[in-house]
């Protein structure tokens, strides 16, 4: 599977969905070409490769396109079988990994974005919502991580990837929002877990410069606040 493999990732540097795929490719040591998409002016290729959703990320492997970040992660794990695995080998553990990745995606992505897009009372409410969901994850990770068998399961898998893509930019969140999502006193396990995750080589390699992340977060927040004020 080495020399003749051509892997292209269509992504956007600030998209947490595209970030997941970057992290996976980095972690597995898979060489790839990266195509930065302008989401306001999507390339012909992107529209051809993902006609249904027209979104990033899209992975193109030897000309075949795969869309949807979680689908891509599973594809990567099944196709490049050498080296560390993104999913556990045990079927029950796999189900748990998929469950928690889904939970973080479905319950925390939009909820966290809402915190960025609001202020005042609305933001307070949004923060409470996020904390409520984080409590569930804190609880869930207690058993999920404790039951991990270090000899058969890597300590960087799909759950880490999804969590990291969302909460990894914690320094930027703190600077722009003046608050933490992963409050150490409230979520001690998640906090120590996150601190370990951001030290993983694959993650460091995929972390953009702090100022750049702060910049785009500011932009995102300002434009959301402006449009809701105008509404």
């Amino acid at each position, binding site marked *: 599977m080495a020399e003749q493999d051509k892997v292209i990732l269509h992504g956007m540097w600030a998209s947490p969905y595209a970030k997941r795929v970057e992290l996976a490719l980095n972690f597995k040591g898979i060489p790839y070409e990266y195509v930065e998409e302008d989401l306001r002016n999507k390339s012909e290729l992107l529209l051809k490769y993902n006609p249904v959703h027209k979104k990033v990320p899209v992975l193109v492997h030897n000309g075949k396109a795969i869309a*949807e970040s*979680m689908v891509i992660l599973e594809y990567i794990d099944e*196709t490049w079988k050498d080296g560390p695995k993104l999913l556990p080998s045990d079927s*029950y553990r796999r*189900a748990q990994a*998929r469950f928690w990745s889904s*939970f973080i995606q479905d319950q925390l992505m939009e909820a966290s974005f809402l915190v960025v897009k609001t202020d005042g009372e609305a933001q307070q409410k949004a923060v409470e919502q996020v904390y409520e969901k984080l409590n569930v994850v804190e609880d869930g990770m207690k058993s999920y991580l404790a039951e991990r068998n270090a000899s058969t399961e890597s300590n960087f898998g799909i759950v880490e990837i999804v969590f990291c893509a969302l909460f990894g930019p914690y320094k930027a969140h703190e600077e722009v929002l003046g608050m933490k999502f992963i409050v150490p006193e409230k979520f001690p396990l998640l906090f120590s877990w996150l601190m370990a995750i951001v030290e993983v080589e694959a993650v460091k390699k995929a972390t953009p410069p702090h100022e750049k992340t702060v910049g785009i977060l500011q932009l995102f927040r300002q434009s959301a606040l402006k449009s809701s004020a105008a509404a």
Partner: protein
Amino acid sequence: MGDVKLHGFWYSPFALRVKWALELKGIPYENIEEDRYNKSPELLEYNPVFKKVPVLVHAGKPICESMLIIEYIDELWPQNPLLPLHPYHKALARFWVNYSDENLSSGVRALFRSKDVEERKKNIEKLWEHFRVVEDHCFGKEEKLLGGDTINVVELAFGSIIKYVTVLEDMFEVEVLEAQKFPRLYSWFNNFKTEPIIAPNLPDQEKMLAFLKSLRARLLASS
């Protein structure tokens, strides 16, 4: 292998797809009918996060979320595979199940809860948009995800939710899956519901209609 129990509602499309998966693979299981107004302590213990059906319990260990259950079943009981074997086709299958879960299911739910004819019309049009995507992009490819040689998970996903749509068609006396608009999807579904394992495992249309009518009345009264 350990015993298998399925906690579900007879009218839930998500429990239905798991039931189909178990039946297609010939896996013996105990069906536990839950009452949405009086969920069993076991269900609440097995699915503390969402408290929903379906939940599969295998040798005492619970798995939640219909697609996760089906992937689990497919891995442990490899006969009559429900997911394609090749990673690329598998990825396509997962993509379309996601499409069904994120778009069709929520569209159907919105239609079910429509308060008046105006809202109903809008929700039908939204559903048509999704049917259009499936009609245009899910057929006529080398990877036959719909109408191939053997039943696969994409068909279980679409089949279970479209069955629900046919009951809503009866309830609202309106055609949603129109043969003229969506010929391939229409003919695929009408063939699918006659398949050997599927046909005897379809919830009764009249029974479902009566139940959903009363459920809808209850939901609209309380909102």
